[in-house]
């Protein structure tokens, strides 16, 4: 290795050349904006657009001033519901599909996984519009489909009702992204050495028993990873709600999540003007929620599961 003397003694120039472009772009367009947003959340703007340092005032306003706090707590609560639906529906279905796909001697495995994964590749915006059409009472596709199984009366404009809109949107998102847990868990299941399951088969265990007692404990670390990926994606979601319900996340903010609240706060909507510093405050809160989730995963889940797997 060539070592150049001088200022960078022991630090060859080619190492710098290799690392500099990536590090500079990443620092400038990712790390700096994130940190600077946190700084901006400690400022307020006045009528002239000038920034004044106001400490934690924005946070206190966001959490306690009814004008802001109602929207904030509502979005946070909705976001947790959104996440819970993913954990309770998306991940179990993903695990089930992965378990079926990884069964030995299954015919058509490649076709199944390719086709089931397809919606995941499409843009959330497209998916949102497609389901908006399908669930529209104007078109009546869902109604006639329910008619096939004798449930015509059961149909309601789910996306338009306050009580069902959020759940419906969450299920649309589940429908789209079920491919991700499926693939990750499928990969983990394939990595389980065969001799572990072979002896169980010889002992007469069914595939069901093998899955519950041998495979599932071994893929718990992957399930934990899928969960944290879901958590981060859900608390950062925006596109689906925005394209189906707009920035107002109606009806009556019943589908408002942190991402849409952030957008509205930052850019404004209708009569309310955009407020960059308050937007930065909402973003920092989202950052905090995501950070807590990631740290919980790294320091609690991952360690516990690793000990268990050993």
């Amino acid at each position, binding site marked *: *290795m060539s070592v150049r003397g001088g200022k960078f003694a022991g*630090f060859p120039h*080619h*190492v710098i*050349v*290799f*690392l500099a*472009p*990536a*590090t500079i*772009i*990443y620092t*400038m*367009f*990712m*790390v*700096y*904006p*994130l940190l*600077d*947003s946190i*700084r*901006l959340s400690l400022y307020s703007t006045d009528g002239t657009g000038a920034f004044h340092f106001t400490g934690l005032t924005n946070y206190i306003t966001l959490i306690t001033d009814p004008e802001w706090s109602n929207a904030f707590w509502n979005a946070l609560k909705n976001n947790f519901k959104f996440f819970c639906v993913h954990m309770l529906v998306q991940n179990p*279905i993903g695990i*089930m599909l992965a378990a079926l796909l990884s*069964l030995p001697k299954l015919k*058509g495995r*490649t076709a199944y*996984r*390719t*086709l*089931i*994964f397809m*919606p995941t*590749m*499409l*843009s*959330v*915006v*497209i998916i949102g519009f*497609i389901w908006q*059409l*399908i669930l529209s009472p104007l*078109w009546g*596709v869902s109604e006639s489909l329910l008619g096939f199984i004798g449930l015509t009366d059961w149909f309601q404009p789910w996306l338009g009702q306050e009580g069902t809109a959020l759940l419906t949107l969450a299920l649309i998102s589940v429908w789209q992204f*079920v491919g991700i847990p499926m*693939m990750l868990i499928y*990969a*983990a299941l*394939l*990595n389980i050495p065969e001799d572990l399951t072979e002896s169980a088969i010889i002992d007469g265990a069914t595939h069901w028993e093998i899955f519950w007692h041998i495979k599932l404990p071994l893929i718990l670390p992957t399930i934990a990873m899928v969960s944290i990926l879901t958590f*981060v994606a859900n608390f950062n979601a925006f596109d689906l709600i925005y394209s189906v319900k707009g920035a107002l996340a109606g009806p009556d903010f019943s589908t408002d999540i942190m*991402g849409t609240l*952030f957008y509205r706060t930052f850019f404004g909507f209708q009569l309310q003007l955009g407020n*960059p510093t308050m*937007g930065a405050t909402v973003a920092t809160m*989202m950052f905090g929620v*995501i*950070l807590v989730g*990631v740290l919980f995963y790294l320091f609690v889940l991952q360690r516990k599961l690793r000990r268990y797997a050993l």
Partner: protein
Amino acid sequence: MPKTRQAISSMAIHAILVSYMLIALWPIFLTIINSFKSRKAIFGDPMGLPGVDTFSLKGFEKVLLRSDFEIYFMNSIIVTIATLALVLILGAMAAWALSEYRFKGNKLLGLYLAIGIMIPIRLGSVSLLQLIVNMNLANTLTALVLVYIAQSLPLAIFILSEFMQQIPKDLKEAARCDGVNEYTIFFKVILPLTRPAIATVGVFTLVPVWNDLWFPLILAPSEKTQTITLGVQQFIGQYVTDWNAVLASLTLAIVPILIIYILLSRHLIRGITAGAVK
């Protein structure tokens, strides 16, 4: 008899997989077939395939006439390809440096670059917009490319580093014995060897960039710089009651991705499953 039991359980498994597959594909299929039908047939017989008397391309005509779809499409292609190329080359350079050379702060820098895997860049949007405006890059594709590179690099570096650690030592040592300098080793020996990892990095870069709505909306919403995702979103918002046009614009946005997916699915899926191992 165990044989019949096995046949029944195998049938049940296929029944579950086929029904889930239908659930996954039916909405996409329905959108595409209806985009080729007349308005009357869309409402009269939504589930029917387009036939001789129901076939119509009116929706597509309207979309191409009323919007700059070709421009949106080109914008998306330019942004995605530029991002992908730069992420691959810059990511490979950094991954190589991190996995090959021992220097002070190596671990720390690796960790620093990895933080971005978990923290979404979107949360820095307020400051990012200011930065882009100050750099005079608002409403340019360059702004999008720079942000997408920053967003994609952490995972790319992570995947490529894992890959580079598997490159046999002999190859590098042989080159070094011949007195070849480090740049030549990287560009002539190492870079060609990383080709198999490109598919993996490609999936994780290409799909989120192509599908993104947030940054085009915030950094480059002008008519000239809209990407396909934003273009479709705006178009549908405007013509929401024109079902022909809406269905046609959705189909125009879906079909290219479906074709690419079907062509590359083998690589894409291998990439995902390989990248997921650790």
